[in-house]
């Protein structure tokens, strides 16, 4: 047992046993905080969908541990605490028993419905750590129920955020601040339950951490928090150092800003040099008026969550360790670094998702530049990005009001991995524990009757390994008083957003569809406040995940299995994979003709072993200043030229696999570019872009 000076002392030497004991104990304390929130939460989205998170931070606001729920929340905790330290630390000061609340998206709250309550952990009068949580609320005010305003021209027309504010002072809940927060909401009783749960969670952490200090000494406990970060950081940096030096690129697209059907681009150039990662998002479109933006803080949180999930395999998920090893650049005034008074009430499912996808894809391309099978086994295509979210509000025939955000867009497809298909209806990468609701739960709470919940055939991105298929739902009003307001929100309706890698195809686009009672079909734009009347049917078709590798390389037996399971249609098998079900010879012939079509001549056969050289990807090596095809040995040309300029390119419209993108004007703004080896016809890359945008040079090796 250690003595316990209240003042700072020297950190004790590392003790492998005690470190493990305390590490486990801190995790158990954070779990206890989660239990405290869930026990009282008034938010069904939070408790049924696991839309929350909780973490423990160092005294300087670095997140040492956080739960497996919404990982973006975990990163956000650190940004909010550092803001509080900076703005309250010296004047007016932070004291024992204080807590701070915010839903300020400019500070770090992912969007306004995500309410964060943070607390310092004091030992006597010394601040030794922080803790806090983030919980999605049903409503935090603003013009419309649910607090997400399609058509807002600025943040003034959304829920105006509450900057970090002291809501508990020396243990006392400040009634006027509580009122200021709850008074904005249409669901104050429910928000109050969550607030009390979050406050109690912070008290639990403070009490338990002090208990640990009593027993083991303050310096020992804080050394474990620091040690978790330092030691994980060292491993993250060592992993980065072992990976190739280079630069990788991706461009994400978000169409429609809630007012105009404009297209916003989010370009990422990821540079890996030495033991750190530089994520350059400066090449992004100017900010939108509202709704779809992310602040620099949210962009950084999404980037961190993606880095931790994809690069952090097998490492402790210590958010601050990843945060330290990466650097994010943005240009103020862009969609990923918006400036006041730009709104961002749904930036989490717009720009935020494209940030995640861009990081995910660039990391996978980097993994593809190594020969290490363990690293290559972590290659992952993008999961669904931007599927249709819907809020409905109105009244039951009994007169009772209701308002709901349906989670039916959550089970989109997951990305394929190297060596395996993506999870069908597996949902988002950065919310591992996210769940959709049961149909019966929705029908119990809202005046709806579902017609189906299905796996969406042919929606997974084709590839040697297939992306997971997405879900599709349809429902009608049932026992509703009258038409209800239906607000839909998405992107990726026209351009496919769930990117594939290594020549894999993107997952199919999503859409919402109204089938009116007079049998007319309406395809809403990806942001719309509309109406659903009794007798109408609303269908939500959710996109699939991206594929990995050339689809013509997929084992025909796997394609036939997918057809038998209904995940791929016979027509899709032929179109996407060149497989004629039940006929191996016909498959071989069809695949040969597909390869011929790609390059306009008979392809050369593959080599037995790839040519020597510096590996750029599984398909290209660099040797003597030239790009060589790893499959057939073809010399593409000198590395002084961009590789994309040396490959065969085919261009097609975005509705080749599903008709819905063309159901609305503007589909011709986009195109899909496929890049092939001009000699063996292997598919090297698939790019989705604005039709007038240049080809993207996606991979480049650098000298260190």
């Amino acid at each position, binding site marked *: 047992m250690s003595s316990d000076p209240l003042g700072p002392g020297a950190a004790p030497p590392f003790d*492998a*046993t005690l*470190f*493990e*004991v305390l*590490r*486990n*104990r801190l*995790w*158990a304390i954070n779990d*206890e905080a989660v*239990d405290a929130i869930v026990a009282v939460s008034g938010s069904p989205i939070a408790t049924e969908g696991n839309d929350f998170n909780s973490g423990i931070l160092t005294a300087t606001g670095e997140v040492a541990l956080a739960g*497996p729920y919404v990982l973006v929340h975990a990163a956000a905790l650190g940004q909010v605490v550092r803001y509080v330290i900076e703005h309250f630390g010296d004047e007016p000061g932070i004291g024992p028993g204080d807590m701070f609340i915010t839903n300020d998206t400019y500070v770090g709250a992912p969007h306004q419905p995500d309410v964060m309550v943070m607390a310092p952990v004091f030992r006597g009068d010394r601040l030794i750590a922080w803790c806090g949580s983030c919980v999605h609320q049903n409503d935090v005010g603003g013009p419309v129920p649910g607090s997400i305003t399609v058509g807002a021209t600025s943040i003034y027309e959304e829920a105006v955020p509450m900057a970090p504010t002291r809501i508990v002072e020396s243990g006392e809940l400040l009634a006027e601040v509580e009122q200021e927060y709850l008074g904005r909401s249409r669901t104050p009783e429910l928000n109050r339950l969550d607030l009390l749960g979050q406050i109690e969670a912070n008290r639990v952490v403070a009490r338990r951490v002090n208990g640990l200090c009593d027993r083991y000494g303050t310096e020992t406990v804080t050394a474990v928090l620091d040690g978790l970060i330092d*030691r994980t950081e*060292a*491993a993250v940096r060592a992993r980065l150092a072992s990976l190739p030096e280079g630069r990788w690129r991706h461009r994400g697209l978000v169409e429609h800003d809630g007012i105009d059907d404009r297209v916003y681009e989010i370009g990422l150039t990821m540079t890996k040099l030495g033991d750190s990662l530089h994520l350059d998002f400066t090449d992004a479109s100017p900010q939108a008026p509202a709704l779809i933006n992310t602040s620099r803080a949210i962009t950084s949180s999404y980037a961190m969550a993606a880095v931790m*999930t*994809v690069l*952090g*395999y*097998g*490492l*402790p*998920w210590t958010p601050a360790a990843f945060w330290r090893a990466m650097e994010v650049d943005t240009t103020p005034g862009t969609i990923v670094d918006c400036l006041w008074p730009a709104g961002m009430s749904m930036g989490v499912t717009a720009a935020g998702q494209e940030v995640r996808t861009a990081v995910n894809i660039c990391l996978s391309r980097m993994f593809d530049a190594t020969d290490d099978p363990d690293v290559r086994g*972590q290659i*992952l295509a993008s999961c669904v990005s931007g599927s249709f979210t819907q809020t409905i509000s109105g009244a039951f025939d009994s007169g009772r009001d209701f308002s709901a955000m349906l989670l039916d867009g*959550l*089970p989109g497809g*997951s990305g394929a*991995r190297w060596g*395996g298909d993506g*999870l*069908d*209806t*597996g*949902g988002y*990468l950065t919310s*591992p*524990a996210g*769940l*959709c*609701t*049961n*149909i*019966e*739960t929705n*029908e*119990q709470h809202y005046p709806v*009757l*579902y*017609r*189906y*919940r*299905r*796996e969406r055939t042919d929606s997974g991105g084709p590839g040697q390994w297939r992306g997971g298929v997405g*879900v599709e739902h349809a429902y009608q009003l*049932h*026992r509703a008083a009258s038409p209800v307001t239906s607000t839909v929100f998405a992107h990726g309706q026209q351009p496919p957003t769930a990117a594939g890698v290594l020549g894999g195809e993107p997952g199919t686009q999503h859409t919402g569809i109204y089938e009116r009672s007079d049998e007319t079909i309406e395809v809403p734009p990806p942001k719309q406040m509309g109406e659903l009347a009794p007798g109408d049917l609303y269908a939500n078709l959710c996109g699939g995940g991206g594929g990995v590798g050339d689809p013509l390389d997929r084992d025909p037996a796997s394609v036939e299995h997918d057809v*038998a*399971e209904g995940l791929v249609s016979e027509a899709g098998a032929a179109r996407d994979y060149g497989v004629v079900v039940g006929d191996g010879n016909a498959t071989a012939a069809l695949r040969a003709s597909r390869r011929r079509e790609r390059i306009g001549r008979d392809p050369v056969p593959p080599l037995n072993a790839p040519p020597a050289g510096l590996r750029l990807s599984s398909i290209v090596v660099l040797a003597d200043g030239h790009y060589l095809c790893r499959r057939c040995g073809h010399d593409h040309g000198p590395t002084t030229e961009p590789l994309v300029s040396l490959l065969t390119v085919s261009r097609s419209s975005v509705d080749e696999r599903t008709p819905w993108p063309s159901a609305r004007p503007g589909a011709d703004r986009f195109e899909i570019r496929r890049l092939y080896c001009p000699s063996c016809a292997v598919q090297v890359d698939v790019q989705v872009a604005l039709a007038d945008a240049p080809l993207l040079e996606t991979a480049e090796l650098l000298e260190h």
Partner: protein
Amino acid sequence: MSTAEVAFSLTPLPLGAVRIGIDTGGTFTDAVVVDSGPGEARLGMGKALSTPGDLTAGALAAVEAAASDLGQPLAEVLKQADSIGYATTVGLNALLTGTGAPIGLITTAGFEATLPVARAAKVAGLSPAEATEAVCWAKPPLLLSRRRIVGVPERIDAHGEVVLPLDEAAAAAAIKALRDDGVTSYAVSLLWSVADPRHEIRIADLIAEIHPSAHVSLSSAVPRIGEYERTMTTVLDAITAPLVAEEIRTLADALAKRGFAGHLRVMQSSGGTCAVDGALRAVETLGSGPVAGLLASAELVQQLGRSEAIATDVGGTSFDVGLITGGEPTMATRPMIGRWALAHPVVEVVSIGTGGGSLARIDPVLGSLRVGPHSAGAQPGPACYRRGGSAPTLTDAAVALGYLSGLGDVLELDREAAERALEDGVAGALELSVPEAADAVIRVACSQMADLIRRVTVQRGHDPAGFTMLAYGGAAPQYATRYAAEVGVAEVVVPAAASVFSASGAVDGKRLALGPVALTDSTSEPPPSERRSAWFDRQFISCPVYDGPGLAPGTQLEGPAFIDHPSTTIVLRPDDRAEVDSQGHTHLFPGPPS
């Protein structure tokens, strides 16, 4: 198994009543025979190897061993017995090995994807290591091909009103198609069958007409809203029901042939038992073994005159915790078996992967000493088993410190092998001596166990310090005072029947109806049977070893000491105390945390 008779006080059970409890596990089958008269009630305990593919043989052998423990032949005990309670693992084994019945699922048209979607769950039930590696995420195993999930047009709404009548022709066609595809067992799960089961019942009638030999499981048997969990439960039931029914039938026949004319009842994971008839749902037998342990705990807690207890079981690969509050086991809020969600009430047993076989290693990133969740399993097992294992485990740590020398009469443990494994795997890297490293391994393991106990109690608003702890299963008594002290528990009870404790929980009805347990004032301290050098407080000291079954009621012992039982060893650290009560249970009073 050596004789260990325990005297029970007289009970209101009918004179001459004999009751039997059997718990079949993957490796061993345990049995107890309770003979409540005339005269003093007696408990016989037996253990036998489970016979793969013939669980009846293991069950009979275990009962025979328990009978002989009471000095009686099997036939005599069976003739006298008026009930047998049976906890079976056959259903769970079938699931884990994919050997269940070929099933079909009939559901509401349009909702065939309920199971494949699985509410998008991809990390629930994964180990922490898998959960933090995105390429390891997976849906719960689907258990049947989508081709055998058939939707039929019908719809009932949340109010139980028929929105679309059942298309009987489509249902009949679905049944025929599944039958022709080789299905022998049907799960029928329709939306809102909880509000009105009429369509499910009609489909069951159709199956009875079209495919009379097939088994049928209906989701309306599980009265819970939420189609995913209810469908999952129904499918699990359909897969396991034919095997469970066959096993029960075989056992019942074998018992009857040997003269048993009483009631055979089957343990359920809800904590009850069910007669062997149409009401038995196989899915409710899944995971009933650990639940039987909790029922035995509840019974023991009642005998002790308490109502709040923490039941702890340290096995080879896991540490299991259950809570008893108000005298009853608590139920799980989100019940699962393996990675499959369940919809019926299940007694809560929470586990972590810390057990005797848990591997100790240095974390390559954090540099800290990790114990579990990876396990050496039964094969190759801990290094000290000398079956080819060379990586250090928790059991190796206990052996290296001198806490254990053998597993009853079953296995001699190789202390040198344990020391070598610890030296190579842990001690060298940490620059510690072997005993220091072994002590560190036990410390980490016990702290993980204490974390789980805190979580389980605090989650339900309790302070563990106010609870009595029970420790059973092969290894719990080795570590119990250590993890109990860690959470502030003042008293740990190691039941007399610790090694067959779950089987005693399977004994039917108010199982033993025993009188109170008394701690007497005797201060008798018997001579130790031997002395053992063991590591406590940073040094090896010579400690007395007592023969557990030979200890008289009232015996009081002080640590450091060991109490050897046929299949477990109680470790008393310095400052721990022990006392044997009038029923042969050992009460441990932990000293301060280590």
